[in-house]
């Protein structure tokens, strides 16, 4: 059996068809890919269970005035609150199974085809525990941490000397003003900036980012990684856009690592294309 020298005995036993009668540690579920699973383990964590939370939400109706740039706060609130609820349900499940945190959280919003005012929000991720029971990886208030980083990014983040605290987000639904008739007339044949549009998009993005940043401050984070800014319209009238900022708030593992300790990535040129 010299061929199998690199393969641990447990694995060979299982390949022979031998199985344990029971699983003392219980069985875990996760939505990791094989590579994610390996990297989460390499980072010193073990998956324990898939955590899901959902929220079906009736989104109120709000109209912006025709020629005003303004935030539609009813919609902003709806989009934020519903996501927050789905996340909270997910976190509850993680707490219930004793997880230190949730990795690879995916947040989705789905419009249900049979009602245009009802949105389904879902949060799903894999609850993990530190394999050696290290207590220092919990999120704020001793709650499980949450992170939308993949297993790969999770490993990389820990290696860079940071740990995730909490997924932070900010939402702003904005009504972009329509242009008045006179204004449009004046612009005919002109190359010119449409400042009210620029301003609207700027402002909305700014508000979303600011809200996310506030959440990070509250969580006691040093920074936010992997921030993504989404723009979307969930079946609202034209001129109504949601800006949604989401990222993972992080903090140094103990004290900030010196830059020289962080391993330099190797530059490679793949030739297997």
């Amino acid at each position, binding site marked *: 059996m010299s061929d*199998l020298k690199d393969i641990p005995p447990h694995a060979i036993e299982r390949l*022979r068809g031998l199985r344990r009668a029971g699983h003392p540690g*219980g*069985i875990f579920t996760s939505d990791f890919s094989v590579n994610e699973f390996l990297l989460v383990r*390499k980072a010193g964590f073990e998956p324990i269970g898939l955590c899901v939370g959902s929220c079906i939400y*009736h989104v*109120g109706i709000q109209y912006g005035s025709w020629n005003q740039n303004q935030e539609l706060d009813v919609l902003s609130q709806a989009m934020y609150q519903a996501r927050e609820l789905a996340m909270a349900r997910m976190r509850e499940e993680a707490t219930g199974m004793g997880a230190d945190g949730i990795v690879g959280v995916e947040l989705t919003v789905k419009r249900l085809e049979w009602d245009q005012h009802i949105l389904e929000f879902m949060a799903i991720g894999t609850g993990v525990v530190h394999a050696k029971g290290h207590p220092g990886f919990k999120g704020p208030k001793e709650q499980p941490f949450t992170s939308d980083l993949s297993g790969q990014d999770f490993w990389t983040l820990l290696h860079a000397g940071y740990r995730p605290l909490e997924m932070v987000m900010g939402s702003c639904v904005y009504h972009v003003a329509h242009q008045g008739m006179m204004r449009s007339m004046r612009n005919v044949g002109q190359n010119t900036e449409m400042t009210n549009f620029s301003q609207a998009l700027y402002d909305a993005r700014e508000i979303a980012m600011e809200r996310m940043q506030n959440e990070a401050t509250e969580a006691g984070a040093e920074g936010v990684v992997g921030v993504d800014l989404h723009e979307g319209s969930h079946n609202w009238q034209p001129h109504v856009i949601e800006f949604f900022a989401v990222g993972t708030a992080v903090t140094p593992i103990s004290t900030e690592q010196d830059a020289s300790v962080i391993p330099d990535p190797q530059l490679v040129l793949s030739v297997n294309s």
Partner: protein
Amino acid sequence: MSWLGNILGGIFGAARGAQVGPSEADRQRSAEWQSALQARRLPSFVEARLAAAASGKVPWVATMSAAELGFARSKGIRPLAMVSGTCWYHYGQSWTHGHASGWHLALARLVQEARALGANAVVDVKMRKIELTIGDSMDFTLIGTAVRINGLPASEQPIVATVPALEFVRLLEADIVPVGIAIGAQFHYLSPGSDYSARRMEVGGSMFSNAVLPQLSQFWEGTRRAALKELHRDAQLQGNGVLAHTHLGQLMKIEQGNNVPPRFLGRHIVIGTVVQTERASGVPHDIRTVVDMRDELSPLANARATGHNAYPVSEEEGAI
């Protein structure tokens, strides 16, 4: 799609008078398939092919790439033959449970072929379906490469690994054995009188306000959790962990006519790869970070397709 014509011609051949009927050999073959499927065994010609492959009389067949072949051989893993399991399943009583049964039957057939080969494992197992709907039915197909591991006796119950050979070997080194496929499929109904109906009946200002629909939320979350619980149960028979790669959920409204509040149907299917592993056994490989110097799409950055086509991936359900 001439092959499709052949299949359909075989089924509905009698209706098309002009066509030449199947030959005696065809008839015999199909009779043998029929009795074999009924008796849960393999037709003699399939057994003969597999026996020839097992003894090395015919060339081996593998879905592996050249790199994977080399890697697998370096660890003493030899490909034998491609094996498959197919089941065209009609869901009369339940679409959701039908999916679970269809996959389980296809799995049993795949394992049957692997056992006939004297294989230890089937790697690179992919879930496929054909884009063809006939009534309330669908095909469930699994294909993969049966392998034998040097020094191990033939397995009574060869393991089913949904990962390619490359990952299979990497997992084994890390003391993780992908052993099978687990399925959780559940559907529930929510009867009239839900908060949804109540909400929609209200008139005036409240339509304009935001509100959580707790009953519907709970119902839907419950359906999903029930499917996950079933996945858990199914996996427990095979190993001690699941990597669930496929999630499919639908929440549907069923109108009951005027003045009657609607009913809801929630159905959820989740499928995963079952693994057997010792807790906290560590990963023996060193991991180095690299930056690819390619400008065009890098094979390192390129997300590899899974090869499954049976369900749309969950990302398609809706962006953030």
